[in-house]
């Protein structure tokens, strides 16, 4: 068994909280540059230029890109030959979130109970998804998720007879409903197949994919291309103020499903599509 110290996990999670909320990944930065060149609406361009300046100020002055520094979502890929010492994995991740949000001057946006709504004041707990895989590594990916866009996400339990056309219509309707509320240009994560919760998880995972990468399934790649074009024809545009760049990318992940079902989940993300990863 390979041993990994809990304190190293805390440190890694803490660093990722600060990194992800101040710096977008390179692919996202490139996509935002391209968007600025592509946009032909004057107001849309004005919005994208402000967003370029915003990214610069965020990085130079260490001010979070967006004040909604999100609820921390963590994907854990744990090699089955790893043993965690000096503490347990779950506690270490939650502690890393606490320290990261505290030390990074990030906003505490989590309430303890959905109805009582008292702030936990340290942004814990995060939402953690575990996967156990062969190997000796521990991979952590942290994706702080803002709720302007999260609130616009949807699940559709379609019928097999709805087919690909039904899925397209559902995805497009979710994007249109989101409109200006989700801070476009968006990144759209879609999960298709599995069960109710599996497709939701896939849709969130889809947001982690590099923005210029397509599905390696031919028919899904074609669907991504077609839908991105359709989304950008809606006219929603940057900030929802009209234009040709409504989404930077749409990523679709699929999974086998039941003979009776066609679940489709759409997880909408804004242009602040944040994530950071570490392999320990």
């Amino acid at each position, binding site marked *: 068994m390979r041993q990994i110290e809990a304190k190293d996990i805390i440190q890694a999670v803490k660093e990722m909280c600060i990194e992800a909320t101040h710096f977008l990944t390179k692919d996202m930065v490139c996509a935002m540059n391209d968007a600025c060149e592509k946009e032909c*609406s004057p107001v849309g361009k004005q919005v994208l230029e402000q967003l370029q300046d915003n990214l610069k100020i*965020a990085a130079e002055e260490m001010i979070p890109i967006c004040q909604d520094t999100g609820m921390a979502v963590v994907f854990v890929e744990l090699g089955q030959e790893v043993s965690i010492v000096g503490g347990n994995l779950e506690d270490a991740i939650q502690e890393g979130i606490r320290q990261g949000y505290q030390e990074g001057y990030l906003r505490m946006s989590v309430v303890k109970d959905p109805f009582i709504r008292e702030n936990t004041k340290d942004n814990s707990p995060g939402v953690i998804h575990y996967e156990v895989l062969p190997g000796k590594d521990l991979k952590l990916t942290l994706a702080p998720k803002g709720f*302007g866009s999260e609130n616009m996400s949807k699940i559709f339990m379609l019928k097999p007879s709805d087919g690909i056309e039904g899925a397209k219509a559902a995805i497009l309707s979710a994007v249109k409903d989101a409109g200006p509320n989700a801070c476009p240009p968006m990144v759209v994560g879609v999960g298709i197949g599995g069960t109710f919760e599996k497709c939701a998880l896939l849709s969130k995972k889809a947001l982690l994919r590099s923005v210029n990468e397509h599905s390696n399934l031919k028919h899904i790649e074609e669907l991504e291309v077609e839908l991105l074009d359709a989304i950008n024809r809606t006219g929603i545009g940057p900030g929802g*103020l009209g234009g040709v760049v409504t989404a930077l990318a749409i990523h679709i992940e699929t999974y086998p499903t039941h003979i009776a079902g066609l679940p489709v989940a759409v997880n909408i993300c804004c242009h602040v599509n944040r994530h950071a990863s570490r392999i320990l």
Partner: protein
Amino acid sequence: MIYHLQIPVSDKELAKLEAGDTIYLSGVIYSARDAAHKRMYENLEKNLPLPISVDQIFLYYMGPSPARENKVIGSAGPTTSSRMDKYTPALLDLGVKGMIGKGKRSLDVKEAMKRNNAVYMAAVGGAGALLSKAIISSEVVAYEDLGAEAIRKLEVKDFPVIVVIDCKGNDLYEQAIAEYNKE
């Protein structure tokens, strides 16, 4: 059109603004989001006074990230306005003249805006670092226990916004999207 406006803004000036105009706002605005709106609304329901006078003010739907040492405020961009829709008509009837946020508003809000000659403006969502530079002072004036959701008195200088819904009820989201729609 591009305007530089000093708050308070007269009814005459407000009436001139049209959906699509860019405005650089200077003066005092107040930040309030979900929890502060809920408390204010509950006060009104119980006939209790509000913690601030809302007559003639501009509200900014925003909850900032914490300020670093020697900074006025942290990241400070708009939050989604529709969550405030339930509480907004009552505040408009008490004199709120401007609202800054992002995203669509309900029909009830639009009606109340027309009735009260008020304007809804969008700041760019996700531009909190940039927008923080236009805030020159910040002071918590109510509901301190709410943390990021407390009501703050903010002094702004050339704070950039775009008029989305004007006093006549024209809605830029609807107009501009129709213009670029190629479905």
